[in-house]
């Protein structure tokens, strides 16, 4: 970030930086960025441009927020959180992202790193076969249109009904794996066509399936870890993916619908990717119902992947038991009750690359595939961010620069020497995800801890990774 821009911030606390409404014409609320001074300095200028554009959207409440892992996105920044008055405010696909309900699942196992490390290649190779990834990947579950609509309505619950999971899984998923209000009639045939073969697939980009070990000496909250069943040296599995082409198409379809609807509703925005509609308008309600379909498909997608992970583990380790610690979305909009001016108020909270972190709730943070990840827990103070925190490390280097800096094959060899076995269908895609392209996840988690929003429970280190 350039110095002139940095000087415009007021330091609210050690890790909260604010731009007043006078920063840009049209801002309705101040913009706030969470992070240490070095995190703020490393953020690209576009984050400020995008966040202050969000602060201009009708009905926005309190602050436009960016978490410590923030970087520029489309319309909203990644790491962005914005809450709107449901009566007077808008809903924007750009505040949710193309990958609706992109999120994280964390599984704990009854296995230790000493048991799994010697068989990591066998395990990762089998998982790579059983969990399709990469461009155009198709899953093993065959659905007809009616069944796909059931998935849209029932989410992970549909999977459990089919034997792809347990009631325990559902109890440990945000909203128990089903967002209410999903209406398949609001989804286009195109979206259905893109998603119908994709249940149980990872996708590519920054999506992955990772075998991790709970770092020794890095359980930070013993009571929370005990409650979540997390122990030092224990093997966990982390899955990062979303609603695949199905959600991407819904986002694209409604971006077009909203671009037209804005003329009718006389809304102007500072960026075409901020296209929005009043939440109460027919277009706004239709998108909310279609978004719920995609969110449910994403819960189902991760649930089917979990089923495959269990099968693969049991093939290699006969007595392996894998239980869900939690599953949480980081690209979504939800109606939630929060305090505004000391009073409880229903708000439409947009989280784009930001994780819900209600008090006591596990929060799963994916770092880079080289450096490791975190399990956090939400706090009471998270009310100040509408119950939201970071979602990952956050990029600091573009994909083209990362690819120019290292080849995928070299990165794979380097990682193997450090005890991380990676399998990928795309070496160029692997290079794009090199650890040096990301912020230090520990510093980002620390910033949100200092802010009192989310507290670290345990650190996880990768030992095997499937990269889409």
């Amino acid at each position, binding site marked *: 970030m350039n110095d002139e821009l940095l000087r415009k911030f007021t330091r609210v606390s050690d890790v909260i930086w604010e731009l007043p409404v006078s920063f840009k014409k049209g801002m309705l609320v101040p913009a706030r960025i969470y992070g240490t001074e070095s995190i703020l300095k490393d953020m*690209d200028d*576009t984050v400020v441009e995008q966040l202050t554009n969000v602060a201009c959207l009708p009905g926005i409440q309190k602050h436009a927020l960016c978490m410590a892992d923030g*970087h*520029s*996105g*489309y*319309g909203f920044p*990644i790491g962005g959180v914005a809450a709107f008055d449901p009566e007077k405010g808008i809903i924007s696909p750009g505040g949710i992202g*193309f*990958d609706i309900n992109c999120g994280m699942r964390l599984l704990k196992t009854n296995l230790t790193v000493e048991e799994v490390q010697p068989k990591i290649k066998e395990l990762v190779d089998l998982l790579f076969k059983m969990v399709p990834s*990469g*461009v*155009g990947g*198709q899953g093993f579950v065959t659905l007809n249109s009616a069944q796909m609509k059931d998935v849209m309505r029932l989410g992970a619950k549909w999977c459990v009904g089919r034997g792809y999971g347990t009631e325990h899984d559902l109890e440990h998923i945000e909203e128990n794996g089903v967002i209410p209000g999903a209406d398949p009639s609001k989804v286009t045939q*195109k979206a259905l*066509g*893109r*998603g119908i*073969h*994709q249940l149980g697939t990872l*996708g*590519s*980009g*920054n999506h992955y399936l990772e075998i991790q070990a709970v770092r020794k000496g890095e359980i930070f909250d013993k009571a929370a870890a005990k409650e979540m069943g997390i122990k030092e040296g224990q093997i966990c599995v982390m899955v990062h993916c979303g609603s*695949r*082409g199905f959600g*991407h*198409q819904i*986002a*694209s379809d409604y*971006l077009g619908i909203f671009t037209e609807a804005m003329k009718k509703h006389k809304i102007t925005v500072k*960026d*075409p*990717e901020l296209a929005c509609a009043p939440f109460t308008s027919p277009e706004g309600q239709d998108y909310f119902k279609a978004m719920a379909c995609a969110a449910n498909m994403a819960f189902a997608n991760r649930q089917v992947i979990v089923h495959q992970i269990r099968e693969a583990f049991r093939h290699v380790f006969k007595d392996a038991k894998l239980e869900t610690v939690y599953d949480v979305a980081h690209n979504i909009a939800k109606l939630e009750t929060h305090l505004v001016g000391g009073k409880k108020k229903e708000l439409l909270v947009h989280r784009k690359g930001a994780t819900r972190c209600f008090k006591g709730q596990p929060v799963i943070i994916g770092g880079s595939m080289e450096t490791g990840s975190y399990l956090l827990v939400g706090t009471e103070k998270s009310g100040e961010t509408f119950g939201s925190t970071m979602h990952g490390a956050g*990029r*600091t*280097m*573009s*994909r*083209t*620069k990362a690819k120019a800096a290292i080849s995928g094959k070299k990165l794979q060899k380097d990682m193997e020497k450090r005890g991380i076995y990676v399998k990928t*269908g*795309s070496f*160029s*895609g692997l290079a*794009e995800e090199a650890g040096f392209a990301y912020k230090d996840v520990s510093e980002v988690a620390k910033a949100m801890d200092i802010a009192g929003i989310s507290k670290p429970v345990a650190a996880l280190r990768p030992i095997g990774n499937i990269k*889409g």
Partner: protein
Amino acid sequence: MPKGWKLLEGVVMADLAFEANGKDLNTLFENSALAVGSIMADLKSVTPALSKDISLEKEDVERLLYEFLSELVYLKDAEQLLFSEIKATVSKNNGWLLHAHLKGDKINPKMRLGTDVKAITLHKYEVKKGKAWTARVVVDV
């Protein structure tokens, strides 16, 4: 012959941006489609085994290109198709018309795959005519 597109640095942090050009709209559309295809696979590994025709009509050239590229993303998921040979014909009637003849293949293990494109975005999207036509496109990956 130099390729008619290049990846752009400094436009987006987490995704990919490219600039395509063409002496006329036909070439611009062809090069833009090759750029999207090349992000998803090394197109030398995509044999022209199958063909597909696409016809679109939109009110302006910008929207026509956006819809065309979005259609390629759709076909990648819905029909598992990637294309390595593109023949585009763009003409003006009341609106703008595109007819594209595409040759490619179903995604298979012989292909050297790259990064999945989730969506064509409107972020910093631009189609303009100078000495030649150019398009700047950011894709969500």
